């Protein structure tokens, strides 16, 4: 279990400071937890703090009872951690087996027989058993990510942190990856960050939206969808006319009778022919971002 109180992180860049995290309070229980947010929201910073790589500026983090702000607590946490960074760098001259084996050694798995068995097991789990004796430098992006997840899993971590793991994967690979994570989440905390709304909806019962270093929302995907209830509309307009600025265009479709828009906004009273629509997860996200003035013009 993860307990976070008043977490802040400030970066100093030259003589300016950037508040990457602005007072985060969260409790995260066992299972899949999704962290959703736009670029620059602070997701990577948050995950690096939980992985013990970045030190918080203030606040308090406890993971399974260990205090992350102490050196010894950090050491304990790293001993039960699996981490897949957003920008995954690897030793590409090694084969997949060698790389995962080396990471297992660094994580302290000394018994070479057990280690060997576990390395093959995780490579099998990510579907790389056949390619495991090839050098990583010949791998595709998706295969590299799979090696990345294999090394994260090799020590059977109690806490698995994956930072935008599905970026750059094809749809099939993404689905495989999501299913793998869900299976893993049965008996551990899996923390997944993404800016792809569907990835979370399909997998997490619990999620948070992070924007500008603050938690905007905490709840289930259903609750997120509900947030946009009565705020989603479809509207068909003729010619060059565009919906006014109070309404955010989520999608548009050019039809014979004009352009059909899907809109999110508090009301569409300016338009008599606007029809209320069923909200989806993405609408919920857009609505919340709009509420907090995080939304930029979409068209």
């Amino acid at each position, binding site marked *: 279990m993860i307990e976070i109180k008043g977490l802040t992180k400030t970066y100093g860049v030259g003589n300016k400071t950037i508040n990457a995290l602005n007072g985060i309070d969260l409790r995260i229980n066992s299972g899949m937890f999704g962290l959703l947010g736009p670029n620059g929201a602070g997701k990577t910073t948050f995950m*690096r703090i939980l992985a013990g790589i970045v030190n918080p500026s203030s606040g308090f983090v406890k993971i399974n009872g260990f205090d992350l702000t102490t050196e010894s607590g950090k050491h304990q946490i790293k001993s039960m951690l699996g981490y897949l960074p957003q920008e995954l*760098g690897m*030793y590409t001259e090694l084969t997949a087996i*060698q790389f995962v084996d080396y990471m297992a050694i660094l994580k302290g798995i000394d018994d070479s027989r057990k280690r060997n068995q576990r390395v093959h097991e995780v490579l099998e789990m990510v579907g790389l058993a056949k390619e495991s004796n090839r050098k990583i430098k010949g791998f595709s992006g998706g295969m590299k990510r799979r090696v990345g997840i294999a090394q994260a899993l090799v020590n059977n971590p109690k806490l698995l942190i994956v930072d935008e793991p599905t970026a750059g994967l094809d749809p099939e690979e993404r689905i495989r990856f999501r299913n793998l994570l869900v299976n893993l989440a049965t008996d551990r905390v899996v923390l997944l960050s993404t800016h792809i709304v569907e990835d979370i909806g399909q997998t997490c019962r619990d999620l948070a939206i992070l924007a500008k270093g603050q938690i905007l929302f905490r709840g289930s995907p259903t609750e997120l969808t509900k947030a946009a209830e009565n705020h989603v509309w479809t509207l068909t307009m003729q010619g060059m006319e565009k919906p006014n600025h109070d309404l955010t265009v989520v999608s548009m479709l050019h039809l014979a009778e004009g352009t059909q828009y899907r809109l999110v906004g508090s009301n569409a009273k300016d338009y008599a022919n606007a029809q209320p629509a069923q909200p989806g997860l993405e609408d919920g996200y857009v609505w919340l971002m709009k509420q907090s003035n995080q939304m930029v013009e979409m068209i």
Partner: protein
Amino acid sequence: MKHFSLKYTLLTYRLDQLWFPIAFWMLFVIVILIINEPSQSTDMSLAYLGTAVPLIGGVMAAYAILDDPALELRFATPIRAAQIIIERTLMIFFIQAVCAFSFYIFAKSIDVDFSSIGTVLDLHLSWVIPTITLIALGTFGSIVGAQTMIGAFFVGIVWIIQIIIRDGMAINNWKYFYIFMGITNPEHPDLHANQIALLALSLIFFLCSWILLHRQERYI
């Protein structure tokens, strides 16, 4: 738990950087063979052991820790900062030691005269001490600046300045920090104090590097 594997430490080392010590080694050997003159051979051999080996060690050390593609993954494992420093700097030192010893054997085989330096131990200390010092400086420089280049720059600057003003370095209080005293002033009365001071300084560099390496966010 040992968290260590010699095999992978070697396999993950940037092997392409080995051209650097090998090229210097071959250059000095070839030049000495071509010139083939006893006093020149002695000077060239001392220059190699006492100045080239430490320089190469220092520059390689600047790249040894931070020039690591999987640094973020490494930082997320429970290995200690001290281990990272020891593992990497020992390897750099080992490479220099292999170069220096093989060069020494080569020099002996063509009867190069090292008697001006003193005993065999004195001769070897005259490259071991500066090599440790510049490795420590290179490590410290790259970590304090959070950039490999800065470590290499520190090493290069100190090396060139001390070579240029070597006579001045041996006389005033700078004498304790004169890296090349073992080969240029082997009979200096303060040679031992100089060696101890350099080792102490290296230790301080390593300690500072160790403390600073705990702030992992500076390096990713």
